């Protein structure tokens, strides 16, 4: 095989690798190194702690619930924004990015005051929303919603209307057209939106601490537990917990990636 010279290859690759290393790989390596140097048995101790187990499971579960909620809600928003011209659409479109821009602590405060027992919305609801698990899921879906909408929007915009018209002329009902023609083509984008939403939700800390009430064994999330451990100068424990969370997140993302590939493959071989 001959190696063709590609102009700018060495320089651009060098810059990219340097940036990636400094910003992503180095911190992760430091974390791993710290974990290696932790006292023997720290992992076992941390993992066997029921409070840690509950927090980790709750973190994952809540993130998953938020991502699932966004799957439906975000898809709907993207659809409406792309397909229906309504007055104020551009404003609504810009508002979708708000959770990106808003400091998460502000989001948390806003949500807790709105949905709190005395809040504008909270006092109308027959069930409590904040300071329990619902509140956590609400906050997580708020901060991760833009990922779902923004992953889906460009794909929806590119989807030719003619394809749906073709299905309609062939006698397909609106529902059959959606299920057989539109959704299969959106699936990869929906999966990436879901994965990004999930990843964002797992890492969220700022907004959750304001709405969860931070009750151990109930609404405590893993990132909060890490902060608690740090405050108690339990660095080894914090690192162990961080590594565990990192591992779980990587596993879930890898799983979604596989699913993504499976669908891509399946489409080719049916």
């Amino acid at each position, binding site marked *: 095989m001959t190696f063709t010279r590609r102009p700018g290859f060495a320089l651009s690759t060098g810059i990219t690798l340097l940036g990636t290393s400094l910003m992503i790989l180095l911190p992760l390596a430091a974390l791993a190194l710290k974990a290696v140097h932790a006292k023997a048995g720290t992992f076992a101790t941390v993992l066997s702690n029921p409070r840690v187990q509950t927090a980790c499971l709750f973190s994952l579960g809540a993130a998953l619930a938020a991502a699932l909620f966004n799957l439906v809600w975000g898809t709907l928003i993207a659809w409406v924004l792309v397909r229906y011209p309504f007055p104020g659409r551009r404003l609504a479109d810009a508002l979708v990015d708000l959770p990106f821009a808003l400091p998460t602590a502000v989001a948390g405060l806003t949500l807790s005051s709105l949905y709190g027992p005395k809040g504008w919305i909270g006092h109308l609801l027959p069930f409590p929303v904040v300071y329990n698990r619902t509140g956590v899921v609400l906050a997580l879906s708020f901060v991760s919603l833009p990922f779902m909408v923004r992953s889906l929007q460009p794909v929806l915009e590119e989807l030719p209307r003619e*394809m749906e018209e073709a299905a309609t*002329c062939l006698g397909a*009902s609106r529902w*059959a057209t959606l299920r057989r023609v539109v959704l299969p083509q959106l699936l990869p984008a929906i999966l990436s939106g879901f994965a990004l939403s999930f990843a964002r939700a797992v890492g969220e800390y700022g907004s959750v601490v304001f709405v969860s009430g931070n009750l151990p064994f109930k609404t405590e999330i893993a990132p909060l537990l890490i902060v608690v451990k740090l405050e108690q100068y339990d660095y080894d424990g914090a690192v162990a917990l961080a590594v565990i969370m990192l591992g779980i997140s990587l596993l879930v993302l890898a799983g979604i990636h596989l699913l993504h590939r499976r669908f891509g493959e399946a489409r080719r071989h049916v």
Partner: protein
Amino acid sequence: MSIEVRNLSKRLGGKTILDRVSLDIPEGSLVALLGPSGSGKTTLLRVIAGLETPDEGEVLVRGEATTVRRPQDRHVGFVFQHYALFPHMSVRQNVAFGLEVKPRTQRPSRDVIRARVDELLQLIQMDSYGQRLPSELSGGQRQRVALARALAVEPSVLLLDEPFGALDAQVRAELRQWLRRLHDVSKVTTVLVTHDQEEAMEVADTVAVMNRARIEQVGHPRDIYDHPATAFVARFVGQMNQLHQVEGGTAFARPHDMDLSLDPADGEPARITKLVSVGPLARLRLDLPSGQELEVHLTRPRLEELQLAEGQQVYVRPNRVQVLAGDYII
């Protein structure tokens, strides 16, 4: 199935897209809607399909009003310029789609669907392509699949919107001959939208020429060519020389209805600016002293007889002139 279009009007954003359009499409015929872009031909086709609703007027199928019926229930086969195949489905799945989405009570069994798809793939000469994805096909193949998909549900009307518009010239020519043969066999009432007059003339039994939201003339391709009803039709269909204003309109002559001579008594003086003699006809461009340009086609024997060359002074005379009223401006 016969289609009757009655007084269709449609406006969009202050612009008139269809202006009281009426058209009869007899059962089993192949009608071409011919016109420049923006003349309303695609909108007319989409109204017939039920994809657009008219502001006024109605579409009758076998004398029955359809304007209120949903497009799903109209039994039309629609073929789009850009194919609109389902990219995530194989060729077979695309063709079978219309059969598989039928309500359970009307849906044929799996074996019947399979046999029908086999038959259609054979018809479009793509038997061995069933498992391919649309992205793995050429443009001409994709359009044939789109046609097979539309035919699968045995539509009562086949509507083709610029079906060959995105293909290169050679494939276009092959496909339109194939379409004509297909129509001769299947006898499905077909409406073809095109801006290519050659395509309309070659394929259709009847051509309807559209301009500015109206139908200007409907007729046999030959009548439209020989006896254009308006100045627009004369200029749009085939080449036409606009000669001069006369009482009641403008005088026109086809390039092959003109003759040249070297004798000043035989016509107006003109100069040959361009002479192309490739093929059975020689094509000449002439400049009149007024600055007007004329196109003249001569047979090869006539050209040799006159011994013409570029730059030469000649005398031009039309053999056959048609005077047409109309406000067509170039």
